[in-house]
Structures are given as structure tokens and as C-alpha cells.
């Protein structure tokens, strides 16, 4: 049954439910000149059970154990400081998470630091590996001042690795937790991020997992997006893994397997729930507007100190507030349709007079202020 047929059947079924049971037959005949539709509708009505799913009981024993979660992290690959990954010497482990394990490496030939991201903890089957590498190489084609460069895509131990620019500075996730940034700074960062998104989207690449942890604030105060294309590459791995699970579960009903896999593929949504767009959350098809939503959540959080759900607070009424509200529209069609459009909306709000204040400078100012205050209090005590 396709969507069209179901819509037609549904309309008749809804009407049939409104009349007494003994009148339904006649109504169905009157409404369905098409015998195929009529048979479908009758089949639905014949097995109708009003109580179905109302007093819900689950299959015995399926619900009593509660350990761990579906998102349990992959086991780390067996890589330690001093090891080599291709031509790169591993210096230390930078982090782990849903999006893979990251190591700080040293490119001995070019003498620069790189971030090495393992895209799949387990060695994937060769065709899957090819697909991951393909996605990763697509990401490597993006060049933008506010996106961390992908230097290389390599295989080590049958596992795909992304070799990325190591961005010095502080992670935005850490920064947000510590301090509330001044609005003009947030506006500037928003414009930089919008411009970065526009560049990547222009190459047909949606980030899918935009969150503060994937944004690095460099010492000069500007921002760089990390991990572009990684979620995409990872989703290949996640989807394949889920397909395996579903295949095992559905071996008994082999005929349904294809449909089940397709259905379940839609369920896969790599990404971080906190910053995920509603459509991504619901496992629908996503496009660049999903990244715009995620960026909206990030900007909101920068401005208010928390994410836009679960509280009723509002940003100060301003043009920027309107921009953020539009980014966060539940329906993708109510948001900015492209990152370029967003960039154009934010651009005029950037205050040229009060240029970005590098964090090191503000820190230095704060340090001097503290020192002055300290000296003054000592001075007062002395007099």
C-alpha cells in the first residue's frame, strides 16, 4: 500500500467509524467504487479492535532489565601514545565520544600537530570502509577559514582515520559553561559560523552534529567548526550496524526484511539530541536547514547560558533575538532556508565599532583589573 492509497482508505475508514457498525458495510460500498480499495477498507474494518493499544500490555518479560543505554560508547581502539598511525606519531588521546576517538598526533614530515579521528572503532567491512572514506574525502574538499581543515583520510589497521587540522584554543562547550559572552561577540561568532555552514552546504555537505563541543574558539577569538562530514561518514557505519541487528531479529520473517531495514534506516539519527533539529529527531530526511536549527540552539545557549527548551526565558528583544527565533523554528520551512540567508541577516548586526575582543585580551584586562583592585584595597588598608 502506498501513501496515496492509505490516504484514500483512511478517509473512508474515518467516516465508517462515525456510523453504527451495522451501517458501515453500506457506507463502504457507497464510498468505494474501486473494488480494490473496497476490499482493503473492509479488511481494515473486519479486524478493528477499539481496545488495541489502549490498555497496553507488552510481550511478557521484555521490559524488566535496565542496564546501559543504546548510546554506549564504542570500545576504544588499541592505540597509545608513542604508536604510529600511518606517518603520524600519536602524542596523546584527546577524547572519546559518540563520534569516535580522537588522538593528538604529530606529522613528522611537516612538523605540525594534527588531530586523528578514528571513524570506526571496529574494523568495518571493506565496502562500508569504502563508503566511510568516500564521505570523509568529501569533507576534505571544504576549505573555509572557520572550518577545521581535513588534511588527509587514511586507513590504519583496517580502520578509517580522518587527519584534521589541530585547532589550538578553547572548546566552545567549555567556554559556554564558564562565561556569558557579550552579545556583539556572539553576533560575530554567529556570522562566522553561518558563513562556514554556507561554504559546506555549498559543497552539499550537512554537518548533522553541530554542537558547542564541535566548535573551537581560537586564541584570536574566532571560531572553527570541527568534524564536518564526520557525522555523515559515521552514519554509514551506524546504519550498517543497525541493519545487522535488524537482520538478525527478522530472520524469521525474511520477506519483511527489506521493508524493515528501510524503515529502520530512517530511524538512525547520528547526532546529539540537545542540538538536533526536530526533523532529525523524528528520523526524517534532513538538509542544510537542520544545521541552521542546531546553530540556533548553540547561539541561544551562548546568549542565555542554557538551551531553548525547558525554560520560558527570552533573549532581550532585539533584531538578533528575531534572527535566533527564526533559526529555531520547528518547521524547516519557517527557518532561514540557507546559511547564506542567515549570514546576510546577521551581517548588519555585527557592530563594527566594537570589534571582536580577543579572549586573551579580555582575560588580560580582567587580570589587570583584579590587580588594580587588589592594590587599591591594600592601599586603603594602609592609609
Amino acid at each position, binding site marked *: *500500500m*502506498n*501513501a496515496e492509497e*492509505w*490516504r484514500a482508505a*483512511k478517509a473512508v*475508514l*474515518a467516516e465508517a*467509524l462515525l456510523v453504527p457498525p451495522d451501517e458501515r458495510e453500506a457506507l463502504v460500498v457507497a464510498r468505494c467504487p474501486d473494488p480494490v480499495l473496497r476490499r482493503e477498507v473492509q*479488511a*481494515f474494518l473486519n*479486524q*478493528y*479492535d*477499539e481496545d*488495541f*493499544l*489502549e*490498555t*497496553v*500490555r*507488552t*510481550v*511478557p*518479560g*521484555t*521490559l*524488566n*532489565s*535496565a*542496564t546501559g*543505554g*543504546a548510546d554506549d560508547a564504542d570500545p576504544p581502539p588499541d592505540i597509545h601514545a608513542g604508536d604510529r598511525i600511518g606517518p603520524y606519531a600519536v602524542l596523546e588521546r584527546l577524547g572519546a565520544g559518540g563520534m569516535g576517538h580522537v588522538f593528538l598526533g604529530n606529522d613528522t614530515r611537516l612538523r605540525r600537530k594534527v588531530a586523528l579521528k578514528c571513524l570506526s572503532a571496529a574494523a568495518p567491512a571493506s565496502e562500508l570502509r569504502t563508503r566511510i572514506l568516500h564521505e570523509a574525502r568529501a569533507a576534505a574538499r571544504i576549505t573555509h577559514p572557520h572550518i577545521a581543515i581535513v588534511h588527509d583520510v587514511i586507513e590504519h589497521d583496517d580502520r578509517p582515520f580522518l587527519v584534521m587540522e589541530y585547532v589550538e584554543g578553547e572548546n566552545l562547550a567549555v567556554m559556554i559553561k564558564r562565561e556569558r559572552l557579550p552579545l556583539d561577540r556572539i553576533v560575530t561568532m554567529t556570522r562566522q559560523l553561518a558563513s562556514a555552514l554556507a561554504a559546506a552546504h555549498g559543497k552539499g555537505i550537512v554537518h548533522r552534529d553541530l554542537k558547542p563541543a564541535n566548535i573551537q574558539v581560537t586564541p584570536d577569538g574566532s571560531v572553527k567548526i570541527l568534524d564536518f562530514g564526520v557525522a555523515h561518514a559515521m552514519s554509514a557505519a551506524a546504519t550498517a550496524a543497525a541493519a545487522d*541487528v535488524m537482520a538478525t*531479529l*527478522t530472520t524469521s520473517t525474511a520477506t*519483511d526484511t527489506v*521493508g*524493515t531495514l*528501510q*524503515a*529502520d534506516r*530512517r*530511524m538512525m539519527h547520528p547526532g*546529539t*539530541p*540537545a*542540538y*538536533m533539529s*526536530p526533523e532529525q*529527531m*523524528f*528520523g526524517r530526511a534532513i538538509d542544510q536547514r537542520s544545521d541552521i536549527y542546531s546553530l540556533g540552539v548553540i547561539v541561544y545557549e551562548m546568549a542565555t547560558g542554557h*538551551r*531553548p*527548551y*525547558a*525554560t*520560558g526565558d527570552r533573549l532581550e528583544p532585539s533584531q538578533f533575538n528575531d534572527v535566533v527565533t527564526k533559526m529555531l523554528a*520547528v518547521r524547516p520551512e519557517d527557518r532561514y532556508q540557507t546559511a547564506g540567508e542567515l549570514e546576510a541577516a546577521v551581517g548588519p548586526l555585527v557592530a563594527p565599532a566594537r570589534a571582536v575582543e580577543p579572549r586573551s585580551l579580555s582575560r588580560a584586562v580582567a587580570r589587570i583589573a583584579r590587580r588594580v583592585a587588589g592594590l587599591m584595597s591594600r592601599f586603603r588598608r594602609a592609609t
Partner: protein
Amino acid sequence: MERVQGELRRLAAGYLRHERGGRTLQPTAVVNEAYIRLLPQRGVSWENRAHFFGIAAKMMRRVLVDHARRKRAVKRDAGPVEPVSISGVPSPAREADAVDVLALHTALSELARLDNRQAEIVEMRFFAGLTVEEIAEVLEISPATVKREWATAKMWLRRQMQGL
């Protein structure tokens, strides 16, 4: 929402752990409790509320499906186990009422391909335990529409799950 997800998982796990024999599990209670904890009482816009419930329903579905999968993987040869009810009503055992969460999950994914909104309504109704009126508010549609969608969705799902 990490916090929400964590909360929901923790709460659901709590309810599920206590789930032995006759005691009931109430998804509505799970979600409501998470909601009450997470939302300060002052002005909540419907948009946020809608988003929250949409996510909560999704979360509950995932929590339940995860559990069902794990359980199935572990106890393929399990003997008779006491029935578990996830409704608020400790109903007398009626075998016909038993719902296989995994089969429902699969059927619902199929329904989503035909009619996404209808599948969302089932998600909110069944997995998050929202009332027809609440779903109408959240989706900004009339209660009559929700009722109609829910009733016809039940027909579709039952037929699909029974392979009729």
C-alpha cells in the same frame, strides 16, 4: 536535551527495574515526571512544549525498543514470564492485549513512510502517553483530527502486525 534524555532514561529505568509481576509501568508518569522536573513553571511556549513532547515520545520509544531488543537477545529461550503492563490500569490478563513492542516499532516505522504525522501521533499517544487533547495542542490540530488519525492508525498497525 542531553539532560532530558538522561532524565528520561533514568526515570524509565527506575520504573522498569521496579517492574516485577503485577506492578504497572506508566510511560505517562515517566514523561510527566521528567517534564515537571525539567520545566520551571513559568511561561513555556507551545513551540517548546511541542518540541519537548515530540522528543520525549521518541525517547520513550527508543527506551522501550532498546529494552525489548536486549531482552529478546538475552532471553530467547525464556520460560513463561509474568505479564507486564505498561498502562496505568492494572488490567486483568487478556492475551489479546499483549503488544510486542518490537513488532509495533517495525509497523510504526512502516506507517511513518505512508503518513509521518500519523506515526508521530501514535508515538505521542502510545509511547509518551499523551491524551488526545494534549496531542491536539502540541500539533496545533483539532482533537477530532487526532482522534480520527489515532483510530485509523490503530487499524493499520493491528493489521500490519498480524499480517492480515
